């Protein structure tokens, strides 16, 4: 366990109040739409009403004729500049503005620039586009049918098939299934949904014709990577691009990709020599930017009568929409989906995924989860419940029986991962205890006898985060290390800069605590800065719960470099040899000589005013951290629901969340992350759905129909922790931002299915709407 610093220093384990709050609670934050520059103009995209259509003509005359309109950019214009297409983050390309055909409803067709927002909106209506409608492909299961239209005529392979990916031992797994005493199968669709951060995507592109520099204020979770991609795609020297991610109003994966609106704003600024602001509407955000999930999955478990699991077989069809714009490591077409063996000790496993194109918005982004881990955790936790039903076993006991035992870590999973550490039973037992599990089961039995519907759902998930080791993980070729640069000023105050970018996670506070822990400088004296590519060291950004495992680790390592130099300076000042010095947070003292010590502040002053001979001046360090492995947070969630038979409504009565994310930087922030992730899990389980009708019309493309929970639908969350530090992380942390969103959907669904299990119900696809539940009750004759 880590030595706890004083509250004044506020290192690891202190619930330090957040520094970022003070500006945000006064309305003094600086979000992209708050940026106002002299001469700034506004852009608006013209979008296709059709899901699949050929563009016969685009007439911009009337739009250009409107007073105040400065430019209308079309696909043809971009084509001339070689910018009609841009690379996605996953081995594909995507139209910036459609040239000859559109592939999904609300796709960008033209980009209008005007003196103000209102004129731009008026002008967008005046752009006349003539379309010839084409047959639409919506159902991914029909993507490979011979009679389905080929969507991507631009590709050499004339097929809607994007990739086949498999991992594991197919033959051995099949053999195990042939001999299996018990089999359980679940076909589960993880529906298409959208992160819908409250701030939509947008940018201000400011190309200065005088300096030849482009400054780009961007809603970006990965400013450095975006700078590099803009340099490569746009041909602007990277030193002439400055990307600034100011305050970001939530990201959840939505702000990892580069979107056509950004590129159009840059092109417009280059064309006009004026700053161009582009801010998405909510409908544009939901209908055109990175969606998540849309995995159509089958899982089978082979087990013995004794309830021991033996093998797992998973087959999945992935709907990527019009372009494969998945934002994930380039060697992993299905992200880290192969963590689908979860918390259980399978000897054999096989997993295969096929990706296809459809006439839907592009994406496949990691919505508040490490790439495709939510899908994996949901699938295995659903499958374990189905197995429990087959065996007539208690789902908690079945899980306890099959957990990977603590002494097996580091654990080699059959699909190739090396789990760093875990104690799954500890988290499970704590959750059962908090829930009063046995009493709940008794209550359920009594209620059933009375014909009332109550359910208890358990999910014991394992996450895989912190990408990642550079040997395996890269985004578009850029290795997934992350970085920190610390400068200690003469007066003992410090600034620490990171390659990540907070979107609400509280880095300005938590990362300061890491430095405070290592250097003993009070967190109040440490400024944390992120998001400005001119000042921050290069990093891959914040998503997939990677900030603490990578940048946080880099912070600790950079601080330790500084401490090593500080030790040299202290030795000089104390006229002692380094070996005789001992460190306590904030000071070096000479062993056995009480009172003979130098504080880090005194040492910092000396680093600039009284430099030891032969030593460089200053007290600074940079560290680029390449984690040796990923980290594997885990936990057990228990959900208790009551179902109203008359209306089919589900009420979440209680939700117990026991998380284990290793050592914790700021308990207050960790709880906040868990509350938020659980609430998004609730939304996904019960409400959040983006669907398409047979013509490719988006259903759920605005906040009237894309339902996100309010305070009224959200229950009170009961949280607790166990602590199993990561053995390879500098201070034993694992990352937590996404565990609750990864682990909770299965708990909600398991609870609702459990409430109906006695009726023979084995699975219900999300979202669990009242009408779906009611129809089941009707079929089962429970309601008249």
């Amino acid at each position, binding site marked *: 366990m880590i030595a706890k610093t004083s509250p004044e220093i506020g290192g690891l384990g202190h619930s330090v109040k957040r520094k970022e709050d003070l500006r945000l609670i006064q309305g003094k934050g600086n979000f992209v739409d708050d940026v106002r520059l002299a001469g700034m103009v506004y852009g608006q995209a013209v979008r296709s009403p059709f899901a699949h259509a050929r563009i016969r003509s685009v007439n911009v005359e009337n739009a250009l004729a409107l007073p105040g309109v400065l430019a209308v950019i079309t696909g043809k214009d971009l084509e001339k500049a070689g910018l009609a297409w841009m690379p996605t983050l996953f081995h594909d390309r995507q139209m910036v503005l459609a040239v000859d055909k559109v592939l999904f409803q609300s796709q960008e067709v033209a980009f209008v620039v005007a003196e103000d927002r209102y004129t731009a909106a008026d002008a967008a209506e005046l752009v006349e586009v003539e379309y010839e409608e084409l047959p639409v492909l919506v159902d991914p299961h029909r993507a490979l049918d011979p009679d389905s239209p080929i969507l991507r005529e631009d590709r050499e392979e004339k097929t809607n098939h994007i990739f086949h990916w498999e991992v594991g031992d197919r033959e051995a797994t099949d053999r195990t299934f042939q001999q299996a005493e018990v089999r359980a199968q679940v076909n589960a669709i993880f529906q298409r949904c959208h992160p819908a951060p409250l701030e939509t995507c947008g940018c201000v592109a400011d190309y200065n014709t005088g300096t030849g520099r482009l400054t780009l204020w961007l809603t970006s979770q990965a400013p450095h990577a975006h700078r590099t991609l803009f340099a490569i795609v746009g041909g602007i020297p990277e030193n002439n691009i400055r990307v600034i991610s100011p305050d970001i109003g939530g990201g959840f994966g939505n702000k990892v990709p580069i979107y056509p609106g950004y590129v159009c704003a840059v092109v417009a600024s280059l064309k006009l020599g004026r700053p161009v602001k582009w801010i998405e509407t909510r409908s544009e955000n939901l209908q055109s930017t990175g969606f998540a999930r849309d995995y159509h999955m089958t899982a089978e478990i082979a087990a013995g009568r004794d309830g021991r699991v033996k093998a797992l077989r998973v087959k999945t069809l992935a709907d990527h929409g019009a372009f494969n714009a998945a934002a994930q490591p380039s060697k992993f077409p299905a992200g880290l989906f192969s963590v689908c063996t979860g918390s259980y000790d399978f000897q054999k496993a096989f997993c295969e995924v096929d990706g296809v194109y459809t006439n839907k918005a592009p994406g496949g982004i990691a919505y508040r989860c490490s790439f495709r881990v939510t899908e994996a955790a949901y699938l295995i936790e659903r499958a374990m419940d189905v197995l429990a039903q087959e065996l007539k076993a208690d789902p908690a006991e079945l899980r306890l029986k099959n957990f990977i035992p603590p002494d097996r870590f580091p654990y080699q999973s059959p699909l190739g991962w090396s789990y760093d550490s875990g104690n799954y039973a500890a988290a499970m037992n704590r959750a059962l205890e908090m829930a009063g599990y046995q009493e709940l089961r008794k209550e359920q039995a009594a209620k059933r006898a009375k014909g009332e519907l109550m359910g208890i759902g358990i999910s014991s998930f394992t996450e895989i985060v912190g990408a990642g080791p550079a040997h395996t993980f890269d985004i578009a070729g850029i290795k997934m290390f992350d970085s920190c640069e610390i400068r200690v000023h003469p007066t003992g105050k410090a600034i620490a800069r990171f390659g990540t970018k907070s979107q609400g996670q509280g880095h300005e506070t938590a990362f300061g605590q890491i430095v405070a822990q290592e250097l003993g400088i009070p967190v109040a004296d440490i400024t944390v800065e992120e998001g400005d590519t001119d000042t921050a060291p290069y990093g891959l950004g914040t998503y997939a719960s990677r900030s603490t495992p990578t940048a946080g680790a880099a912070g600790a390592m950079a601080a330790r470099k500084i401490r090593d130099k500080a030790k040299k300076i202290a030795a000089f000042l104390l006229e002692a040899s380094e070996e005789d010095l001992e460190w306590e947070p904030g000071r070096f003292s000479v062993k056995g000589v009480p009172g003979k010590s130098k504080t880090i502040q005194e040492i910092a002053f000396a680093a600039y005013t009284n430099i030891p001979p032969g030593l460089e001046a200053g007290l600074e360090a940079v560290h680029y951290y390449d984690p040796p492995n990923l980290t594997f947070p885990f936990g057990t969630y228990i959900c208790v629901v009551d179902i109203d038979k008359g209306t089919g409504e589900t009420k979440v009565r209680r939700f117990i969340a026991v998380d284990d994310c290793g050592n914790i930087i700021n308990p207050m922030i960790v709880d906040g992350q868990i509350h938020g992730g659980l609430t998004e899990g609730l939304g996904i389980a019960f409400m959040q759905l983006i669907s398409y*009708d047979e013509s490719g019309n988006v259903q759920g493309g605005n906040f009237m129909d894309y339902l996100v929970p309010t305070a009224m639908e959200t229950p009170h969350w009961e949280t607790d922790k166990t602590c199993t530090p990561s053995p390879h992380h500098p201070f034993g942390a694992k990352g937590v931002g996404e565990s609750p969103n990864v682990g909770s959907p299965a708990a909600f669904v398991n609870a609702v299915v459990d409430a109906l299990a006695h009726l023979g119900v084995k699975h219900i696809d999300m979202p669990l709407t009242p009408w779906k539940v009611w129809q089941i009750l009707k079929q089962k004759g429970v309601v008249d």
Partner: protein
Amino acid sequence: MAVRIEKTFQVQEPIDQVWKLLSDPRNVAGCVPGARITEAVDERTFKGSVSVKVGPSVTDYKGEVRFERLDAAAHEMELVGKGQDVKGRGSASMKMTGRLRSLPDGGTEVATVAEVNVIGILAQFGGRMINDVSDVMFGEFTKRFQKRLQESAGAVKPAVAPAAGQDPVAPTPAAPVAVETTAPEQPPAEPVNAAAVFFAALRAAIRRFFHRLLGGSA
């Protein structure tokens, strides 16, 4: 947002008389208000437009209808219509077939099928609600058609064709939907019966859309 509507009804008039009516636009022009044929491309293809006002909203559509089949011998007709929102925010299309069959009692059975598909912002907000109002609108059309048929029975053909909107047949008081439409003069010689049905379905779609969008508060 595809919808299929079937309507079959019987009239006592003989088949030839009914066919004459069904294939002669002038007599059915008024069956649905607001449809306007602006141009005859050829004897089977016509351009039209409709301006639909629903609650606080106005939507202008430009459309084209074409007789895929007009088989007097078999008493069968099929036409395809398509309209695009002039603001470029979507389209609606319809395939309609009409078939007549003589009845033993000398009367005629009229069987019509309309397949409507709405795309764009209306469908985004309108959900599956297009269905029943399309149904109601189409029902209104057939009701008016029958009424007109009875009038025309044995009656002298009107010297001047009635223009849409100046429909001698008053809208049924219980008109299921009260659509206010601009109803310009109807060029007499151009068939709008099919167009009218098509636009009726179109309006139905829009109507349904507002049913969905508004409400909750005012």
